[in-house]
């Protein structure tokens, strides 16, 4: 695969990104892609020159499973060769009032400090804010994503969800 500039960032990514929402996902109690299969898929993608991997902190069951599959795959790889995306916003921890949304607290906890993928791989390259809705939340979120981005060299991605959201 060839590589392309990711917008104005200067970061170069493969012309296809690999999405990992099936990793650790259970449908009707059946695991769609287990850790071995996930690693096989990532190996094949990387063999073709793929370096751009998309994830979210809520992918997999329980939440964080997909991130941890990518993290374990990267243990035998050079982390610097891959551009990783994760997302924050959706409910990650239902027992924690700060376990979802785009507050500074949740973004910081999920995206930079305690994200499973971050714990294993040092940093995530891009963080998507999946659901900014109101000007108020946008202002606060931009401020908190800003401090996180400056600290961790992350790139922020707004996600346009399906109509109605």
């Amino acid at each position, binding site marked *: 695969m060839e590589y392309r500039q990711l917008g104005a*960032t200067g970061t170069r990514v493969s012309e*296809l*990104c690999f999405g990992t929402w*099936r990793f650790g996902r259970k449908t009707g109690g059946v695991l769609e892609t287990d850790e071995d299969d996930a690693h*096989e898929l990532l190996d094949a993608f990387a063999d073709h020159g793929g370096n751009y991997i998309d994830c979210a902190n809520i992918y997999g069951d329980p939440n964080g499973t997909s991130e941890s599959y990518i993290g374990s795959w990267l243990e035998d790889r050079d982390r610097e060769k891959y551009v990783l995306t994760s997302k924050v916003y959706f409910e990650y921890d239902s027992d924690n009032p700060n376990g979802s949304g785009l507050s500074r607290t949740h973004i910081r906890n999920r995206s930079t400090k305690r994200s499973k993928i971050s714990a294993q791989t040092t940093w995530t390259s*891009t963080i998507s804010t999946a659901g900014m809705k109101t000007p108020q939340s946008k202002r606060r979120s*931009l401020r908190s994503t*800003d401090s996180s981005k*400056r600290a961790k060299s992350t790139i922020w991605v707004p996600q346009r969800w399906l109509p109605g959201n």
Partner: protein
Amino acid sequence: MAAWQLTKALWKAETNDYQRFDVVQPLFHAGYYKDVEEYLSVAADQELAVCPYSPLAGGFLTGKYERADPDDPKSVRAPDGSRGSFDERFERFYLSERGWKVLDEIRAVADEVDATPAQVSLRWLMDQEAFTCVPIIGARTVDQLEENVAAADISISREQHDRITDARFDEDGRRWGH
């Protein structure tokens, strides 16, 4: 997030010297283009990369589904084990008159360039001229992954690209019903 909200976020970032958005991740594929046109025009103008999710429309643009009734676009014949008409989102967003028209054109181009509909669908996204477009592929098997990745090795002409884009419209220039 609407186009104006994205614009406002970029404006707020610039005004306050916050870090700006650099990439957007919309639902975007050949059967769902005009719906996000305004949003994409912001991306083009502001040099944001576009990374579409569901680039194959939940499998619809792979061509594995067949239309079962010429009068009812929601009537679909699905191969065993596929989502078919069972997925509400799939039915609501992809099973439409224009979805089938776009798929027909994608199939025609696929025949012309000796590729699969999935590869042509991905190529159509990768060849967007106004902005960098990097589709997010969600292959379940290594075989699917290999097929998707081979989209990097095919090429379609501008004329073929436009035919797929234009397949959304009838002879009078009106968009097919959704």
